[in-house]
Every structure is written in C-alpha cells, then in structure tokens.
C-alpha cells in the first residue's frame, strides 16, 4: 500500500519536473523567435519638415514602412483629429499602407487624394477612406514634435491627444 502511493507520488513528481522542463524549453524557443533587440531599438526616424514643398508627398521609411508626410497648400482644409499643425502649416502624417491589404497608395496631387492601385481604395488628403475596400483611415504612426522635426516612434502630446480624441 505504502509502496503503491509512494510510486504514485514519485511518478507524479517525475511528470511534473518533466513538464516544467518542457514548458521552460518552449518559452526559450518562443523567445528565440522574438525580434532581436537591435530590431526593436531601430524603431525611430526623424524628419525635418521645414524644407518640404506643399502638395508634394514626402515618403520616409519608418520600421520598414513608408510614412507619408504631406504639407497642405493654403486651400487644403485641415481635418480635425488627423491633421497636424507644425509651425504655420498643416501636415498629414500617416503610415502609407492601405488599410485593406497593405499596398502603398499613390498621391494624386491634382485631386489632393490617395488612390491604391491594388484594390482601388481611395483616401482623402488626411488619409480618411472614402471609397473601396479599406476598412478604416490610414494609420497614424506614433510621433513627437520637436520644433520643426518630427520624431517617428515616440509618442508626443499631439499624438496622444489624437488617439484620445479617436477613442
């Protein structure tokens, strides 16, 4: 009787230790798949917006994604909660990937809008989806304003206000 229960206990203990080892290994393997620290830290891009030309799309690369920086002309109206005022000018700052399947829309300067060649989605100058399959406006990357410099990847007060207004 004693023997039986002791064997049962040892068996369970052995099973538990084996399981701990197995789980620990799985965690290690999961972490091996994680992005490298160097990849995670290479996530900041700065853009000087002072030299930009109005109505001409500037595309910068941030975390492998194209980010659109568009300076408005005098007759382009800012959109609440999406247009950013830097100095005396309004800008659109957004990730240039169609929210449908991630293609890069092209800017049509004469119509002040974006057209995605993949599936025909269209966005306004502020990135709001106005036609086709895209389910939502273009995403806004986390950014911070530092004078006339835009830091992508850091969350500044303007960005936080935008996100709060959306939620």
């Amino acid at each position, binding site marked *: 009787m004693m023997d039986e229960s002791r064997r049962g206990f040892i068996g369970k203990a052995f099973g538990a230790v084996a399981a701990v080892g197995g789980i620990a290994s799985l965690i290690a393997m999961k972490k091996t798949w994680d992005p490298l620290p160097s*990849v995670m830290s290479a996530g900041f891009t700065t853009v000087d917006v002072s030299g930009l030309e109005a109505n001409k799309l500037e595309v910068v690369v941030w975390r492998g994604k194209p980010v659109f920086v568009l300076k408005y002309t005098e007759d382009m109206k800012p959109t609440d909660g999406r247009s950013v005022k830097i100095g005396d000018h309004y800008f659109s700052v957004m990730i240039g990937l169609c929210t449908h*399947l991630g293609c890069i829309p092209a800017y049509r300067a004469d119509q002040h809008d974006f057209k995605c060649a993949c599936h025909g989605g269209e966005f306004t100058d502020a990135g709001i989806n106005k036609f086709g399959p895209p389910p939502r406006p273009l995403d806004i990357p986390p950014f911070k304003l530092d004078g006339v410099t835009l830091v992508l990847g850091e969350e500044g007060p303007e960005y936080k206000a935008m996100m709060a207004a959306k939620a």
Partner: protein
Amino acid sequence: MAEFKKADSMLEWFDQRLGVVNFAKVMMTEYWIPKNINFLWAMGVLLSVLFTFLVVSGIFLLMYYKPDVNMAFDSVNYTIMQEVAYGWLFRHIHAVGASVVFLVIYIHMFTGIYYGSYKKGREMIWISGMLLFVLFSAEGFSGYMLPWGQMSYWAAYVITEIFGGIPVIGDELVVWIRGNFYVSDATLTRFFMLHVLLIPLLIIGAIVLHFYALRFPHVNNEAGEFFDFDEEAEKYKAGDKKGSKVVPFWPVFLSKDFFVLGFFMLFFFYLVFFHYGFAMDAINFDKADGLKTPAHIYPEWYFLWSYEVLRGFFFEIGGISGKDLGLIAFGIANAVFFFMPWLDRSPMVKPANQRPYFKYWFWFMMVDLIVLTVYGKLPPTGANAWVGFASSLTFLTLFAALPFITKAEAKKVGGK
C-alpha cells in the same frame, strides 16, 4: 539471443538480421488492395513520387541557394538558373512540382469525398490526409518566399498580415512571426528553416501516419463495398486470382500505378519544359521591394479559393467589420474539411452519384470552389467583389447544410 546459423545467401543473411522476407510480404506482396478501383486510386503513388521529386530537386537547389535578402534573388535567378549545370531544371521541377502536387492533392481529396472514403472506420485516413494538406500548404507558402521576388515578398506580407486580425495579440503576433516589424531578413531565414527542415520532417511523419492509417480499415473501392479482406486474400493466395476481390500491392496494384504515373509524367514534363509560367509568376522575376507594391497581388493558384473566402466579406455585417468576417470565414474554410467524417451524417458509403442528395452537394461544391478560385485571382472590383461574396457565402452555407442534407438522405435510404 538465439543461435544464428550460417546464411546460405545474401537474402538469408539480411533476413536473419532484419526479417526482410516477412517485411516485404507485409509491405508489398501481401498488402491487399481492392481490385474494383479506377485510375483515381493511383493518386497516392503519384503524390509519393512528386514528393520525392520535390525533395531531390530541393536538395540540389539547397547547394547554391543563399537565404539572405541581398543574395537570395540572384542566387536563384543567376547562379541556379544560369550557371549551375541543370540548375534551371531542378528549379523548374521544384516550382512546377510544387504547383502540380496541389492539383493531385485536390484530385486525391475530392476522390475521397466523392467515394465517401472518410467514414466508417476511415476517419483517421482522412484526418491524416487533411493534416498533410495543411503541412503542404505551409511548405508551399514558406518556399514561395525564398526566391525573394516581388510576389514572394508581397504574398508573405499580405498573408502574415492576416494574423494581425486576431484579437488582442494580433499586432504582436505578426511582429513575432516576422521577427521584425516588416518582412525582412529575419523573416526570410526563419521561413527558410521551416521550408527545408521542420515542415519536411513533419510531412514525412504525417505520410507515415497516413499510410499506417490505411492498414486497419483498408483502402475503399469504387462501389464502397465492405468485404472480408482476410477471406479474399486467402482466396487470392489459394490461386483464385480472378475470383478474389483483392490484389497485392506489389506487383499488381503498383503496375497500374506506374502506368498512370507514366502518362502523368508526360503531362508533368511538358509543364516543366514548355509551360511553366503558371508556377513561376512573371512578377516574381522582379526583386523584392518593400516600398513598391505590385499592381496585383495574388497567392499561388492552390490558395485562391480560401483567399477569396477571406476577401469575399468586404463590408460590415451586424457590427462586425468585413475584415473580421473574412478572417473568421477564412479560419472556418481552412478547418472545415477536417470535419467531413462528422458533417456527413449519412452512413452510406457509395460514390456520390449513387447518393440521392449528396450528389447535388458534391457538384455544387465543385462549382463553387472553381468560382472561388477564378475570382480569387481577378481584381476584386465592382461585380467581381459581389461574386466573391456570394460564392464565399455559398461555400459556408454548403458546409452548414451538409449535416441536414445527409441526415435527410439517411432517412430516405433507410440507413442503407
């Protein structure tokens, strides 16, 4: 250990140590297959041969391929295609083989559905087969990334992006899978590992399971007839070869398979040498560029039907966004075939055309899958989007209706 007597022949020497005579009987000469079959029963052997072709051609490609974003494209398109002796041949066999293997898998799969070869004891054959389908899909997808062309990149981008739709963990999961915020070198090397090692190992394991699963319930036949295999085997061994309902795997069954294989290979090599464009998309001969999206992005043809189910839902229904609906439908589409044995509530094992209701279901499904496949490639604009929506909905509806249709059928035929 028993005393070994000196062997008189090489065969005996091996037989003493490995039991090769008995092994050959069990695997070949006394492994019994029904006689009442047609050429569709040769698809399994065709698949084994194609898989062998893929492994062998893959080994030779591996000798010169470089899994690095700066070198991958040229290592394939210059070194392998233009410099290595017969490198182009191995690549063509690998690319065309990967495409054609899916054609044969689909024929194999729908043969199984048509003849009801997934029920009454054959559930594990079906499930292990579906597991192979999923593994082959993963193998195809990971391999498609390796040449690092535009379609490699953007297919990888769009498909990994799909995981972003999973609630809560989605965004982080995508970064975790890619090993970066975007499809990058880390993504290429890990998919390389999956493609050349992990998934092939799993495939080989699943093939063994699939073959093993055939042993107990035995292979189905053209009429769906159940009979005593041992009795029929005895009849055959006793010399009544014409009266027996079974034949041995070797040489009788395989002789028919080789004949089918011969003509299939004629078709296969025609594709390899003269008509490979369908398997080697032109756009993939442009090097991957993460900042330049091709005008049309589509997966390889064998993923088109499920891709179309994914994008068929393009508008909000009942507060759920089209994207989420598509993702749910896509998840269902990829899992639902596993449940065939339980969704088909009729105990009847017969060719579909002899089943009063199921035959309509089967041919409707075939038509719907073809429509999904074709519209999965066409740009989803205007009327195309609605055809996609209707055929995606039809796909889901057909599966939802299957238990009821087959239940009604069981009632009609009275449990026969």
